């Protein structure tokens, strides 16, 4: 048939030539030789309405056209094109032209001129876009011909100024496809034209229509994903990612099919593909970027974890699926048999797609990568995606659990952290829990603690799960007794989260017996305490539980509630009303009584402006004592209570110093007294630094008060110095310095000054003009009186206030065996400490070693020595190198942690500095103001060492 048709068309073609020569009537020819093109011509001539013409064209488009007759058909179509007034018909013709020029074997250069000509007169944007599309088809067929490409690119550039986004879009596509986009190739051979093309595309990155911008970037980026150079690929990946973030919802067509998908999905698929790139740098980047593409649809997301297994062309279930099935069938921990994983059904060979274009198995590959950098990146990405999609979290659980057994500790740690972060969305199956718990035996403390942390916020589905977790934790406890605290804490949360699951386990856990009394367990056994912590926390929200307790359990409860109050919650126990509810029931639980107490006592202090000095002192002393006790009792209020207590202490010291009756006595007589006063000034200074730098959550309101107190202390210092020194010269300098400080205080806290009515600084500023001009002795006098008359400033409390604390876990200081080493050489001492509420520990925390001879050594730990196991908490694990000359016998050195501060770095001044920077650069003499110092904030630990003399 085809051959026959071909012959006919051929005949028709030769006839057409003859027609020119012999002047035969066209009508006759058409009647005798009805060919496709001729038929079309007739049809189009007959068509009276555009709709008819469209119908004919549609019919025509369905039939194939022979190579030889294409040109003829094109001519006819063009002829009609020029005549046609209806845009839709022209559009169809233009699209037909494109289709026709795709015909294999046909060289479209002959119709290119015509196509370009049509562009010139076209008004309709749609038709223009379609024509450009046709030109693109022509261009892609003629890529070998540079002049054609140049011409087409020129045409496209001309139309880039079109007002329709569709046209601009197509133009860019044309330029992108035909203009050579080469990057990374030797620059000098890159032609001017190529550079132009890049520039043109680049210019359109700023187009006002997002669809055009998308096209511009896509034109460049997609090509570069397959580049030979890894830098180029990496940049392309990033480009696509940026694109997908900017326009996640725009719709892009899938080449080679009619479907359309969201841009973010398309980009996701492309980046997933790059996870199996040849270069690990690109892989890391691709994996990282995947994590931030949260808008991707869940269907694509879940594909990333899917990898169809097969064996000899038969489908196999993954180990995960098998585990799930085992679990759901009720059988747990069965041994694996030979052929257990025998493949099941046959797979249709056609349906297996070995290299998926989409996202399939991207994470499976990423998590199995050789480079741990890639694995970490993949875990991070999983974490971020799982946080935004609970269903994905559920699915990726198996993979995360698998990562707990990675060979690199960093990866294991990362995956545990990830799991903790997504734990709100998930419930662990028993078999998964089993794998998770197996990691408890890890010898790395970091891993174990991270895992405890994870268990704290894990949901367990069955009581067996709870039991399993408890058993494993107890095993952990016997193996690593140092984990005690962490395990108790873990069990506390485990208990309070799953009260109903713990309830049925209680008799077994407490080994109570319905008939027989069982021996009372040892109260000091950490394992027993662990069990009790679990039970008591569960009992808090499960009132029926205490009925199951035996007598000694209640006794143990009372003991533990006192000794480990942070782990054991208050319980409403029958017959123990006093213990469980010491507060009157009228107070609703929202108003914390202790908080009330705090505020009340503070109110009391602030209200007593006009009490006699003795009374003030006493009241302050009592309040300070109360607050300190409160801080010890209520851990959550400790920061607040300590902070205020410190402040009151400062005030008390100040009052005491000023109350000295002997201020008017001649200088030489009261050396003793001024020792007290100067000591007070010194102590106040120290305390104010502590207040400023040791607490997290201090706001600028508090900073002002602290600075004010410091200013008062400095004034006191000045007065004392003026009293004790003879001669005026040294005073000049001091006075000047003090006045400078007042000045900078004013500048720093200008906004806060209105709140400080009647305070020391307020009065001082009023007297400022007088102060500047008067002599030092005058200044001192003025200061003294102002200091006495000034009122006590109210310290407002912030929402949250935490005191930085540090606890040195290792060295324990209990060892009697001295650490022996040869003098002159060094010995490494492992230091392990937990830090709480320390901001920027890398910069501030130092280790101090004090030798018995008074020599002190300050060590700056490396930034890498700090880990961050949770919000507000840090862990310092470092090595300190000790050395000393030989000693005759072993002696103890002291190790402690210091918090370094620099008053320049103070939050308030930093803020002020920023705001005033533009106005007056020289306003703040920072370097003079900057006082560096350290605050010891951990209990010192004693280490027994013994440097031996070197043997010669």
């Amino acid at each position, binding site marked *: 048939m085809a051959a026959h048709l071909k012959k006919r068309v051929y005949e028709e073609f030769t006839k057409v030539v003859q027609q020119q020569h012999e002047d035969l009537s066209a009508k006759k020819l058409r009647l005798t030789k009805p060919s496709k093109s001729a038929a079309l011509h007739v049809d189009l001539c007959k068509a009276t309405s555009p709709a008819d013409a469209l119908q004919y064209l549609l019919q025509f488009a369905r039939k194939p056209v022979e190579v030889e007759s294409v040109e003829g058909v094109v001519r006819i179509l063009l002829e009609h094109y020029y005549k046609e007034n209806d845009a839709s018909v022209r559009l169809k013709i233009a699209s037909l032209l494109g289709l026709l020029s795709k015909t294999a074997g046909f060289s479209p250069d002959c119709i290119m001129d015509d196509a370009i000509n049509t562009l010139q007169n076209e008004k309709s944007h749609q038709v223009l876009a379609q024509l450009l599309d046709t030109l693109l088809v022509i261009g892609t067929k003629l890529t*070998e011909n*540079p*002049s054609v490409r*140049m011409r087409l690119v020129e045409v496209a550039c001309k139309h880039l100024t079109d007002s329709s986004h569709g046209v601009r879009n197509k133009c860019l596509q044309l330029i992108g496809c035909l203009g*050579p986009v*080469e990057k990374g*190739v030797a620059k000098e*051979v*890159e*032609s*001017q*034209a*190529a550079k132009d093309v890049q520039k043109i595309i680049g210019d359109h990155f700023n187009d006002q229509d997002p669809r055009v911008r998308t096209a511009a970037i896509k034109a460049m980026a997609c090509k570069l994903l397959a580049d*030979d150079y890894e830098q180029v690929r990496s940049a392309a990946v990033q480009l696509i990612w940026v694109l997908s973030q900017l326009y996640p919802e725009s719709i892009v067509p899938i080449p080679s099919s009619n479907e359309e998908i969201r841009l973010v999905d398309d980009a996701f698929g492309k980046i997933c593909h790059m996870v*199996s790139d*040849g270069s690990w740098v690109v892989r890391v980047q691709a994996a990282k970027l995947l994590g931030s593409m949260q808008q991707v649809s869940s269907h694509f997301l879940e594909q990333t974890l899917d*990898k*169809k*297994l*097969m*064996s*000899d*062309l038969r489908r*196999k279930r*993954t*180990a*995960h699926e098998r585990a799930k099935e085992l679990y759901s069938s009720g059988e747990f921990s069965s*041994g*694996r*048999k*030979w*052929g*257990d994983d025998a493949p099941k059904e046959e797979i249709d*060979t056609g349906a*297996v*797609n*070995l*290299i998926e274009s989409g996202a399939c*198995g991207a994470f*499976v590959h990423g*998590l*199995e*990568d*050789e*480079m*741990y950098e890639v694995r970490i990146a993949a875990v991070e990405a999983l974490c971020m995606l799982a946080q935004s999609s609970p269903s994905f979290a559920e699915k990726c659980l198996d*993979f995360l659990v*698998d*990562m707990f*057994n*990675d*060979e*690199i500790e960093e990866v294991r740690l990362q995956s545990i952290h990830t799991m903790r972060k997504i734990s709100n969305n998930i419930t662990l199956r028993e078999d998964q829990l089993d*794998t998770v718990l*197996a990691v408890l*035996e*890890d*010898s*790395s403390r970091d891993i174990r603690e991270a895992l405890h942390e994870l268990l704290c916020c894990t949901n367990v589905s069955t009581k067996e799960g709870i039991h399993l977790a408890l058993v494993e934790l107890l095993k952990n406890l016997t*193996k690593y007794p140092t984990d005690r605290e962490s395990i108790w804490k873990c069990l506390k949360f485990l208990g309070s989260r799953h009260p109903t699951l713990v309830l049925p386990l209680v008799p077994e856990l407490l080994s109570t017996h319905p008939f027989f009394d069982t021996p009372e367990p040892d109260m000091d056994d950490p394992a027993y305490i662990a069990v009790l912590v679990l039970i008591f926390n569960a009992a808090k929200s499960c009132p029926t539980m205490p009925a199951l307790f035996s007598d000694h359990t209640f006794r143990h409860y009372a003991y533990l509630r006192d000794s480990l109050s942070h782990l054991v919650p208050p319980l409403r126990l029958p017959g123990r009303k006093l213990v469980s509810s010491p507060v009157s029931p009228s107070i609703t639980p929202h108003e914390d009584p202790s908080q009330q107490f705090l505020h009340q006592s503070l109110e009391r202090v602030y209200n007593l402006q006009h009490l006699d000095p003795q009374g003030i002192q006493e009241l302050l002393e009592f309040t300070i004592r109360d607050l300190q006790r409160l801080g010890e009792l209520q851990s959550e209020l400790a920061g607040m209570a300590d902070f205020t207590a410190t402040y009151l202490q400062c005030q008390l010291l100040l009052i005491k110093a000023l109350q000295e009756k002997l201020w008017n006595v001649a200088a030489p007589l009261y050396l003793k007294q001024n020792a007290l006063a100067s000591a007070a000034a010194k102590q106040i200074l120290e305390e104010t630094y502590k207040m400023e730098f040791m607490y997290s959550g201090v706001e600028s309101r508090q900073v002002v008060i602290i600075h004010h107190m410091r200013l008062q202390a400095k004034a006191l210092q000045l007065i004392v110095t003026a009293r004790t020194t003879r001669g005026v010269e040294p005073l000049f300098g001091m006075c000047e310095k003090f006045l400078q400080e007042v000045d900078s205080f004013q500048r720093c806290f200008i906004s806060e000054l209105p709140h400080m009515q009647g305070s020391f600084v307020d009065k001082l500023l009023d007297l400022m003009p007088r102060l500047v001009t008067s002599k030092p002795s005058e200044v001192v006098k003025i200061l003294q009186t102002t200091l006495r008359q000034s009122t006590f400033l109210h310290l407002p409390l912030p929402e949250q206030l935490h005191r930085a604390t540090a606890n040195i876990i290792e060295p324990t200081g209990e060892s009697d065996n001295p650490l022996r080493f040869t003098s002159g050489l060094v010995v490494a001492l492992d230091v392990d400490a937990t830090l709480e509420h320390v901001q920027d520990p890398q910069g501030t925390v130092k280790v101090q070693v004090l030798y018995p001879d008074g020599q002190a050594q300050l060590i700056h730990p490396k930034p890498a020595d700090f880990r961050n196991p949770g919000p507000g908490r840090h862990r310092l694990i470092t090595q300190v190198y000790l050395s000393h000359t030989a000693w005759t016998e072993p002696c103890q050195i002291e190790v402690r942690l210091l918090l370094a501060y620099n008053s320049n770095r103070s939050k308030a001044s930093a803020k002020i500095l920023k705001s005033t920077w533009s106005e007056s650069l020289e306003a703040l003499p920072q370097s003079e103001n900057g006082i560096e110092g350290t605050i010891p904030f951990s209990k010192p630990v004693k280490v027994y060492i013994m440097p031996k003399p070197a043997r010669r």
Partner: protein
Amino acid sequence: MPEIKVTPLGAGQDVGRSCILVSIAGKNVMLDCGMHMGYNDDRRFPDFSYITQNGRLTDFLDCVIISHFHLDHCGALPYFSEMVGYDGPIYMTHPTKAICPILLEDYRKITVDKKGETNFFTSQMIKDCMKKVVAVHLHQTVQVDEELEIKAYYAGHVLGAAMFQIKVGCESVVYTGDYNMTPDRHLGAAWIDKCRPDLLISESTYATTIRDSKRCRERDFLKKVHETVERGGKVLIPVFALGRAQELCILLETFWERMNLKAPIYFSTGLTEKANHYYKLFITWTNQKIRKTFVQRNMFEFKHIKAFDRAFADNPGPMVVFATPGMLHAGQSLQIFRKWAGNEKNMVIMPGYCVQGTVGHKILSGQRKLEMEGRQILEVKMQVEYMSFSAHADAKGIMQLIRQAEPRNVLLVHGEAKKMEFLKQKIEQEFHVSCYMPANGETTTIFTNPSIPVDISLGLLKRETAIGLLPDVKKPKLMHGTLIMKDNSFRLVSPEQALKELGLAEHQLRFTCRVHIQDPRKEHETVLRVYNHLKGILKDYSVQHLPDGSITVESILIQATAHSEDQGTKVLLVSWTYQDEELGSYLTSLLKKGLPQSTS
């Protein structure tokens, strides 16, 4: 047309005795020289008589390349070089060179000493053979001779396994040997750059398998061992000496380290000890983790794994023992198995495939009562576990490698025909490259389209590029010049220089063509009409009407004469030189179409 010929002598649609002959640009290379495990007769070695019936093989082969030390890739080497006779170079990586002779010697011992075969290669032969070996480094380009060069890429699989690129001029072949695209506990993943070879010869052992994540398998393995040891049981892991054994050792070693376990692990001595020594030595060939921790501690210096002594088997308490051979058919592993089989606390883990008939296969298929020699019945109470660890690339891995290397053709070896068929189809579908899978002895010919470099003088290049469009890297460009092929080199020079160099005089070449035109008018009128016609069409060219009645278009001459017989027909004589060929032929075709009807 240049071609690459590939003939597998072994491993063509088969697993075992890998041996592939490749002829590329006149060079003959033999890839691997293995033996077949399944045969004990002549079939165990490749048929080298295919290469030559008589005479030394050296004359026919340029080099031999061994991809790794497994016997099915190097087992026939001493036979080939010493008994058949080959003196040329043999290339392998350093670890392969070190470990290969140990395995060959072991193989020889078993065949000669145990089975009592004669006519087999001797220890001396192995030594002589190894003297011919040239060791190569990864990514080192080795010039075998002037034209042939080879380069090794990392292949994973076993220590020292490599993929080789063989390159002559710009034609190249990549042979993968066995490779693994997923890293394991001691080796990394295979990697190759985008070298775009003409042919990629890939193994296809797991052509139809897509494997599960190895993590589950590892975890299962460790969990099982851990549980048994905690219960106080003993674990027996029968292994073959090299490869998997080391992986499992690393796995257990790190696990013991991590979990702080104390139960002893033993490794049966002998061959493995030597092998471990080489693993220690070639630390750069292992994976990222081992290479990184090497500074602190060499992972192969096992802390927890000690040498096994026969007496230890009776020690009380838990222990883990690695013992050879892997299929429990003889030797130490079987002895230990018999001792431990009766206790249900104990466990045996089979880490690999077991051949039918061996004790390993029997227990794996669930048999609980075994008849040992001497009609003894052994009741197996211990747990039997199967754990497969394989180091070949699966279907996905193979596709991934193809994607990385971007070859123009792919050829599959080292796999079963049926499975290859599937993969072949997939490769052709997804990469649109042709894929071959020849059987043993069958020759596949691949035609290549090599680009041939030609030197061009700078002057000519500049002159030619000045004409026409600016140069474009990826598009062809037309140039005029003379190609001189001399002394195996190609040069493109300007015609004048070529003439000068060759000492030749320039010849003029002229084409003359007659065109008949129907025109009853006089000659000069016809000429005038032609002149006007041409003038109208060729606006960019200089068309001149000469006084002698001829027309010149540039340098083309057109003369008109009346036909001798028919005065109505005019004959136009068109003459042009070779240089004006383009314009000349255009003119003739133009004139052949005839003159326009009414110009006057």
